[in-house]
């Protein structure tokens, strides 16, 4: 079973429905070719690091799928290239570590540092009662030495 991942950027000027339907066509194309879709990750609208086709933002999608052979990847990439609504795409083969990484990411095991449990509130400081010397030391008449 080959695990692959295709990330593509959809034109942001399209309406939300059109963007979703664009992604849906590729999901269906993959399913028709006999690939099992593992996950469709809609990363959403993101600013681009440099303008592509005069646009400065794009809608990112990442589809992870598994298939027996890789024969349909050529067809998939050709369709992605011909589609005018898609600005860039990248197909990547995932090795077992990549598959595990994606799985852990979906389960939330990878991410920012986990915050430690909040510390117990510090014990309240109560100042000891002011020192009162025992009565017998306080002399009524002090001798001047």
């Amino acid at each position, binding site marked *: 079973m080959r695990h692959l991942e295709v990330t593509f950027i959809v034109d942001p000027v399209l309406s939300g429905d059109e963007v979703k339907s664009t992604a849906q066509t590729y999901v269906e194309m993959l399913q028709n070719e006999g690939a099992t879709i593992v996950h469709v990750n809609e990363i959403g609208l993101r600013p681009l*690091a*440099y303008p592509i086709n005069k646009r400065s933002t794009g809608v990112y999608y990442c589809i992870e799928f598994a298939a027996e052979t890789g024969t349909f990847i050529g067809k998939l990439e050709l369709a992605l290239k011909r589609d005018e609504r898609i600005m*860039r795409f990248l197909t*990547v083969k995932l090795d077992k570590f990549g598959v595990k*990484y994606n799985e852990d990411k979906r389960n939330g095991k990878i991410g920012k540092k986990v915050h430690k449990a909040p510390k117990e509130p510090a014990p309240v400081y109560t100042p000891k009662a002011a020192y009162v010397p025992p009565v017998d030391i306080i002399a009524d008449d002090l001798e001047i030495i």
Partner: protein
Amino acid sequence: MATKDEIKFLSNPNIGKQQKKYCRFKKFGLKHIDYKDADFLIQFINEQGKLLPRRLTGNSLKYQRRVASSVKRARHLAILPFVADLLK
């Protein structure tokens, strides 16, 4: 003769010693580098967006090559820039 504990210096004699550099992937057992993760990959590029050499990042050859290909994929997908100014 004063013993080692008794000598006091005005400035720390350990200053200037190089931190022992290690490959963070080998040390922490990270096997996969995600090209979609810009926050992680920014550690390996300089303020102009160029890849940092292995002698600065401390990576082993195997992981430096993987980092390089991940950064290049991220650049293709406009997750990282090719050329930048004051990136960090």
